[in-house]
């Protein structure tokens, strides 16, 4: 696991559900085929209403129309990120698009488990609400050892909640690696 993540932030509102993260019509693509699975990156966050895509002003696609990857590796969400269906295609789509870390006030249970157990993205919880403080396009640095998000554009720093029980799974890579390291499976 990287110790420091740098890049541009993309800001979203509360209650981003998995249909907005990856619309159901796209769930037909293979997740294991390297070429076909790129489609998940292409359509990541494609159902977020355009006026709310990239706050505060909106109007920004997470992945540009002719691309398979985003220029924003850090997602800033609000409360209840990832609510809705259990589709693991959601954190997978974000990983495919190039999302490395999400910082949100809170997560829906299944999305959170999927992000961690599948080893797709790091789901950090913020101490305070950040989707009204950080702007899409701001350059941010996340220090995973100090649990701090630094907004380099605005010259501000915010505390993140320690990853706690999920840290060993994230460090191992996914639930299976963790289970092998702890001799639960061979």
């Amino acid at each position, binding site marked *: 696991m990287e110790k420091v993540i740098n890049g541009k932030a993309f800001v979203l509102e509360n209650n981003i559900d998995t249909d907005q993260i990856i619309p159901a019509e796209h769930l037909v693509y293979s*997740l*294991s085929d390297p070429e076909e699975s790129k489609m998940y990156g292409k359509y990541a966050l494609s159902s977020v*209403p355009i006026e709310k895509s990239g706050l505060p002003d909106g109007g920004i696609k997470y992945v540009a129309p002719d691309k398979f990857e985003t220029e924003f590796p850090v997602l800033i969400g609000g409360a209840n990120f990832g609510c809705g*269906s*259990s*589709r693991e295609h959601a954190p997978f789509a974000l990983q495919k698009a190039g999302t490395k870390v999400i910082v949100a006030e809170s997560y829906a249970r299944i999305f959170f488990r999927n992000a961690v157990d599948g080893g797709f993205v790091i789901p950090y919880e913020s101490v305070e609400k950040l989707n009204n403080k950080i702007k899409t396009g701001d350059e941010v640095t996340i220090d995973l050892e100090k649990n701090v998000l630094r907004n380099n554009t605005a010259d501000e720093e915010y505390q993140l909640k320690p990853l706690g029980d999920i840290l060993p799974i994230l460090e191992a890579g996914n639930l299976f690696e963790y289970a092998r390291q702890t001799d639960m499976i061979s």
Partner: protein
Amino acid sequence: MKMTITEKILAKSAGKTFVEPGQNIWLNVDVLMTHDVCGPPTIDIWKREFGSAAKVWDKNKLVIFPDHYIYTKNPQANRNVALLREFANEYGIDNYYDVGTERYKGVCHLALAEEGYNVPGTVLFGTDSHTCTSGAFGMFATGVGNSDAAFILGTGKIWEKVPESMKFIFDGELPPYLMAKDLILQILGDITTDGATYRAMEFDGDGVFSLPMTERMTLTNMAIEAGGMNGIIAADAVTEAYVKERTNKEYELFTSDAGAKYHSIKKYNSALLEPVVAKPHSPDNVSTVRSVEGTKLTKCYIGSCTGGKLSDFQAAAKILIGNQVRTSTFIVPASTEVAKALEVETISGISLKEIFEKAGCVIAQSSCAACLGGPADTIGRAQDDEVVISTTNRNFPGRMGSRQSEVYLASPLTVAASAINGVITDPREFL
């Protein structure tokens, strides 16, 4: 120490005498269910992680219902069903219900009940967020993703954090214009879409226990819409009768101890509640039907694990009998068993199927269909800026298809009344 029903079932599954909220425990899984959207990627992960020696931990405990994208020409969707078929053949999975055969069932959550996989006191996981539906049978049931499911497939085990419990009590039988859908939407309006995140939602009171199993399943089905880990209703004589008709598996009845600890307890007087809708674009954006009466509709939809059970169609038929719909209306029986029942069950000597046909409804084949939009050729899919009223479970942007569409969620009674008038209508107008 006092425990809730959820805590007791989790303790049993973990081989412990006592568990408490916040504790991380490893559970022994009684049933793992998957379908055509999440089954193939789950199998891929299982093969990748367990290698050539990958073994299904217990063939009798794996159940596969293709149900999401069935009646479509989409090649990738059809390939996913073919992958399930190959897997079932290769590994000898008897509990596979193939498309295009007599065994095909339709929507997994209802199929689990009908085929006798819902057994009081057991633990069921599924690769679908609405797996919580099975909690109506006094069991622990919850949804997981593909990685967790692949882990279960190889080991029969999974970790969970013991949830805090919230109790929702409905005092008094429901008046004839209310359905379980109104109750759960009312709760969602009160506690919002993250009001029960990582918690158990326990439903109680004579209002709940006077309901048939299929209505109870509507309550537990939408626990996930509040972020709930599971919904649960203790099994009673009604549950036992349903279960005994479907399986001879042994079951164990659990109830919450008097004095068990709850995060919160909320009480409702059934007689004081009104028919409600969830307005676009969230299941917690709840108002009375009266407050949005007259909203013009372009489509009405009765179907899905939430609102496509026999009791849902009986309710809708009660209103539609002898009437004509003014808006295009889709009837999508959740399971093939329900589809057959529409031909047999009658009101005033007329079959439900005939009532719907005479009213001008389109009757579709059993599957998840347009509840989640699906491929472009899915029947009933929301197009362009359509305004839809639906008995389904979610109305997030784009959920039923077009991102420009607006979806109202309501009970089958309310949807049927609205279909007749072409505008949102309180069912009391027809009762």
